């Protein structure tokens, strides 16, 4: 990026090893001193051009105005969202780098449907930074932010044993090792637990590849000690495939679920871990540790396999808790023609899923994330204190729950539950309680009416008992405890979609509502789509500042960074029973010649034992 010439001190004025083992409070005191220095600088890291938004052209219909950023210099610019040909686009003009036009949402009708569910959060009552710069250059979180942290990410290393061709993040390429100490991690986790109105309760331990850390189990344990109810570990699954004990240890330490990359059902679409996933699933199964499959969806690459990915999830539903698809976020300087080949948005994926499941999962079965806010508001009214709310922007994500019958028929929850009806019922009940009506009477009214919104004759056979189904709903609404939700999850497959932004489709309105955050080593809490979209200003700047030089890290650990390279034994993996069983009935990977398997792996950047 052009703007990165800020002259800020790139490394802390001390060796990281000098503070690594200090008590958490002491580390916090030291790192927080550097926040002003690490914040993005006006006129250096970014400029502001708040002129008029671009004019509409013939055939375009105004949807909204917004603020966005120049993909080349990060200048803050006015942008227009418009409809043309049934799709929503964003256009913006940087005075220095010209016009940028990007697909924002692939279906205007879905945009309008989703928009109806938008609800804003309560804001951040305990901001970590004062407001001194425009959004998104003041993170965070700052007093402008609208949503509490729903999922906190904590990067615990930038090491990785894979050498994916597109990645510039891992330690060898970055030229330093970012690996916060256990005490430093404890400080970061505490920072997010201090937030009000609702402290972070869900954390994703991520990297790099977090399972490369020898103390990963201790990290999970620390997260549990610090009060996190939900702990997930984000991994490419290589170590899970070869080390059966690690899954058990992770579960015993308090991990609730593993978040595993899974881009497709063939070696062509998923060269990252196609061969290892079956073994990882087997080990997770033995450890009784659930997994969410996370495909990054790219047009012209794996969009044609989204239906098969869901089928794969259903086939392994004894251990797969969900499939969370992520339409591609395009990073780096990519010409428009190339972007158009790759770009896919939430409605595009929904349409493909509809086609590839023969209409069994329709677009209308999906709801935007804030749809469930009335559940939180109802429980809040009952309990009289702020509850966990998913108030992210409607264009950021969508979800549904999937059930199935023994004959393989896929049945989304919307076929037998009137989701809109239930949410309206809860919304109204929350208002009644807030206006002073007796909460027990209102709750009884809700419970007596709930059955009207459930038609179990259309439900999968195992849910034909209305009483049984309503018991789940009652437990979630009234008990509102994690185990009730978990019990429900065990009976279904969660289907989610989260479209992270990139510099081309950036929308400040979205990022102000973001509820997926990162805690940085200096204690700031930053939305996912500033942390990763402006890495030079947030992620890389902060991580490098508190990192080890490679030489020092190697001396301290006795490890050699360059030797941490995974070499795949395709032949051996293909010959195993777990591999055959995993893909049987989902994809015909067995007729693909061995040489093509090897080629797919090598092209991706993962060497193969010949």
């Amino acid at each position, binding site marked *: 990026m052009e703007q990165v010439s800020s002259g800020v001190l790139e490394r802390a004025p001390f060796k990281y090893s000098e503070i690594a083992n200090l008590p958490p409070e002491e580390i916090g005191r030291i790192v927080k001193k550097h926040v002003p220095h690490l914040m993005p600088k006006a006129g250096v890291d970014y400029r502001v051009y708040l002129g008029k938004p671009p004019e509409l052209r013939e055939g375009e219909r105004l949807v909204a105005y917004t603020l966005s950023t120049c993909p080349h210099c990060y200048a803050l610019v006015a942008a227009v969202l418009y409809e043309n040909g049934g799709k929503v686009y964003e256009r913006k003009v940087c005075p220095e780098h010209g016009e940028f036009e990007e697909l924002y949402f692939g279906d205007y009708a879905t945009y309008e449907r989703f928009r109806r569910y938008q609800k804003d959060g309560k804001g951040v009552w305990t901001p970590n930074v004062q407001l001194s710069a425009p959004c998104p250059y003041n993170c965070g979180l700052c*007093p402008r932010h609208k949503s509490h942290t729903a999922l906190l990410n904590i990067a615990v290393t930038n090491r990785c044993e894979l050498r994916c061709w597109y990645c510039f993040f891992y330690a060898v390429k970055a030229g330093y090792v970012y690996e916060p100490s256990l005490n430093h991690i404890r400080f970061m986790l505490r920072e997010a637990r201090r937030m009000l109105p609702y402290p972070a309760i869900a954390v994703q331990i991520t990297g790099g590849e977090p399972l490369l850390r020898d103390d990963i189990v201790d990290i999970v344990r620390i997260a549990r000690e610090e009060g996190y109810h939900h702990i997930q570990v984000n991994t490419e699954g290589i170590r899970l495939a070869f080390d059966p004990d690690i899954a058990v240890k992770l579960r015993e330490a308090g991990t609730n679920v593993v978040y595993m990359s899974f881009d497709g059902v063939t070696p062509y679409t998923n060269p990252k871990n196609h061969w290892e996933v079956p073994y990882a699933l087997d080990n997770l199964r033995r450890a009784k540790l659930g997994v969410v499959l996370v495909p990054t969806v790219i047009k012209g690459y794996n969009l044609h396999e989204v239906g098969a990915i869901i089928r794969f999830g259903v086939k392994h539903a004894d251990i797969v808790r969900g499939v969370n698809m992520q339409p591609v976020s395009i990073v780096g300087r990519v010409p428009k023609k190339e972007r158009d080949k790759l770009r896919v948005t939430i409605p595009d994926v929904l349409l493909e899923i509809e086609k590839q499941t023969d209409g069994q999962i329709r677009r209308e079965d999906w709801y935007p994330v804030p749809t469930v806010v009335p559940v939180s508001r109802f429980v809040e009214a009952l309990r009289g204190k702020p509850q966990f709310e998913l108030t992210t922007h409607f264009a950021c994500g969508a979800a549904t729950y999937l059930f199935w019958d023994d004959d393989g028929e896929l049945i989304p929850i919307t076929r037998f539950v009137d989701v809109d009806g239930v949410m309206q019922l809860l919304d109204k009940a929350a208002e009644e309680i807030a206006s002073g009506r007796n909460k027990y009477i209102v709750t009884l009214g809700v419970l007596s009416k709930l059955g009207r919104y459930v038609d179990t004759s259309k439900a999968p056979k195992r849910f034909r008992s209305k009483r049984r189904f309503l018991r789940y709903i009652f437990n979630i609404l009234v008990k509102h405890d994690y185990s009730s939700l978990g019990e429900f999850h065990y009976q279904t497959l969660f289907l989610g979609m989260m479209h992270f932004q990139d510099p081309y489709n950036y929308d400040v309105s979205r990022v102000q509502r973001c509820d997926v955050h990162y805690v940085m080593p200096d204690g700031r809490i930053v939305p996912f789509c500033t942390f990763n979209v402006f890495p030079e200003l947030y992620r890389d700047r902060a991580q490098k500042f508190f990192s080890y030089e490679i030489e020092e890290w190697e001396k301290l650990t006795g490890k050699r960074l360059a030797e941490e390279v995974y070499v795949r034994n395709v032949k051996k993996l293909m010959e195993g029973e777990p591999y055959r069983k995993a893909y049987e009935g989902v994809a015909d990977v067995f007729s693909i010649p061995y040489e093509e398997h090897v080629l797919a792996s090598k092209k991706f950047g993962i060497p193969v034992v010949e």
Partner: protein
Amino acid sequence: MIVKAFSFSASLSEPYPRRVAVETAVYAVSEGALRRLECRGRGFSFELDALDFDAEFGDVLQLTSADVIRGLAGGSFECRVSECDVEGALLKVYNATVNGRSYKLLAAYKPAEGKLLKVYADIVTNLAPWRERARAVSNLLGLAPSALESV
């Protein structure tokens, strides 16, 4: 020192309909009492005022300049900027109407290191009863207990 204050009415359409109107009164704090300031008025400019608008209402009303810009398609925004000369501590009182509900909200500022720092702000999503808020602000600004009765 010059401080800005905003009085506005907004009818916003995106991402959901909202009607917000705010009349801001600015008071100087002197010798335990409040004195309403007369300020110079001018029109609003996103270039000049967006950040100050965010600083003013991002927390108090959960409303930012980005929200205003977003909602302008099919909506409206009229805003008067007041520029006031102040020397010491300051109280802003927002008489706000949000989707038909009225609120009286407070923000207190104190001088520190050549700047005015916001030391207290009501947040519309986290409002204590008026008496508690008035007491907290009075204590922070060294006001007599009755000082906020007339605002």
